[in-house]
Structures are given as C-alpha cells and as structure tokens.
C-alpha cells in the first residue's frame, strides 16, 4: 500500500526556511502571506493489504527515522 508521511516542525520551533520564503513572497508583492512553514512529505510503499497496518508501519518508520520528534511532528496517511 502507498503511505504518505507528512513531517513538519513543531509549533514554536523557528523555521528559517519558512521565514526566508515569507520574505521572498512579500518582495513579490504577496504582502498578505504570513506564518510560512516548510514541511516535508515522504511517499513510500509497504507490503501489506491492510490500511491500518500500513498506517502503523508508516508511523513506526517516522518515529525511527523520517521525523526527529525533538523538533518535528508527523502525520501518516494511506493514499492507496
């Protein structure tokens, strides 16, 4: 099954990339843009027919490697 793992910085953790992108958006005229945060998406396949097992596997992989829970949160979706 296809699994999608979203990894984003925890609230309150400074995101210099997001800040830089926000400044660039402002200089392009998008003055209303604010709170820009950059996240990461990891798509992968796991060998199982169960959506629940696939989701659990994705979470396991996120905890082990894909996310650093000191600074990041993650969320897992089964996409097919």
């Amino acid at each position: 099954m296809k699994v999608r793992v979203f990894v984003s910085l925890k609230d309150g953790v400074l995101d210099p990339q997001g800040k830089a992108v926000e400044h660039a958006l402002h200089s392009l005229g998008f003055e209303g843009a604010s709170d820009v945060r950059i996240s990461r998406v990891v798509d992968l396949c796991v060998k199982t027919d169960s959506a629940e097992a696939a989701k659990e596997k994705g979470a396991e992989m996120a905890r082990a490697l894909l996310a650093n829970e000191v600074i990041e949160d993650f969320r897992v979706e089964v996409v097919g």
Partner: protein
Amino acid sequence: MKTGIVVFPGTNRERDMAQAFRVVSGRTPQMLWHQQDSVEGFDLIVLPGGFSFGDYLRSGAMGAHSPIMKAVRQFAEKGGYVLGVCNGFQILTEAQMLPGALLRNAGMRFLSQDCHLKVEGRDSIFTSGWKHGDVFRAPMAHGDGNYTAAPDVLDRLEGEGRVAFRYCTAEGQVKDGDEHVNMNGSARSIAGVLSENRRVCGLMPHPENLTEEILGGTDGLPLFNGIMEALG
C-alpha cells in the same frame, strides 16, 4: 590512549581530527568505517565533521543509524568517552545520545568563519584543559548549527553544568540575540553540550583546526590536552 575516528560516507574532517590527536599524543588514531559493528578496545571514539550521507533527510539522521552507532551507543553506556564535532554533534543528537537538535542556522547562511567560545562545562575531560570561563577562538563551518531543545531540557543542562561551550564575544560576553555573536541563533548561545555522565560531548565549532601555529593558532589545543591528560 587509543582513539578511533568514525568515517561515514561524506565525512571530510577525519584527517584534521587525526592530526590534532597526533600533535598532542604522538600517536595516530585509527579510522573506523561506519559499517563496522564493534568499537572494542578504544578509550575514545570521535565522530568528526563533514556531511555524512549528504545531509539527506536531516543532518546526521542517516549516520545516526549506521551499523557502528549501535556499538558506539553501547560503548557510551558502559562509560566510554565519545566526542562529536560539527556533523558528529548532529549525529549524536539524532542518535539521542545527547539532548536537543541542530536546526538550520537562524540567518539561513552556511557559516564558515571564526567564532569565540566560553568554556562552561564542569567536571569533564572535554573542558578540563581550560579554566572555567576561559574564552577561546574556534573556526566554524556549518549550515545546521542552531541548537534547540525544550526549555526544561535547557534549564536542566544549565543547572547541571552540562553546557560545555557557549558562543560569546572575544571578551567573553554572551549575547543570545546578537547575530554577530550567536551567529547561528542557538538557544541560549549553546555551542556544545555534555551527556548526563559527562563522557559524551558534542560541539559545532572545530577546535581541531586550530592546534598548530602553521594553522593560524593553537586555541583549540586545550581540548586535546585535557583529553590526553585524562586518558593518557
């Protein structure tokens, strides 16, 4: 003292590190490829700087899961000494052998320049070559050196004398909000930390690159002298 230096794909400061140990001890450390699964017989394991695995995913994230790291973790749990510099520090935090994490530098820039560090760690062979409060110059070269940890973790590090080094001015002033002093934006200007048993140390700047006059100074020598005095 028998020193092992771990080499990951993308490590590039291993020979600088070996040279620093050669200068103080006259002995050449042994290079250890990351796929080894044992670090037996060593007194000190060093994780040097570089860009292990191309900094993919997060700096140090892949290196933290290399086969050798299981052995390094066991070595540390048994009281072995471990030093991580720059990418080595990132690997130690990713492996959760040291608290916190290293984020992208606050100003987004890769910083390749000298900085000044204040020695604050207590009861550690990694700081014993200096007096408490000493200031020394060290080169830095990193993109992800912005140290962060939960406020209670930071309080605990400070309370237990486990902040080994802090960024400061040449005169020893710590200025958290000043980008010319705390250049990467680290929480509480923290440049290096110690583990609970004080035998694992990680820091972002490179004392190994100032250990001979021909390199421009010997400001980094006390790190290696302190280690040598303790471990022989």
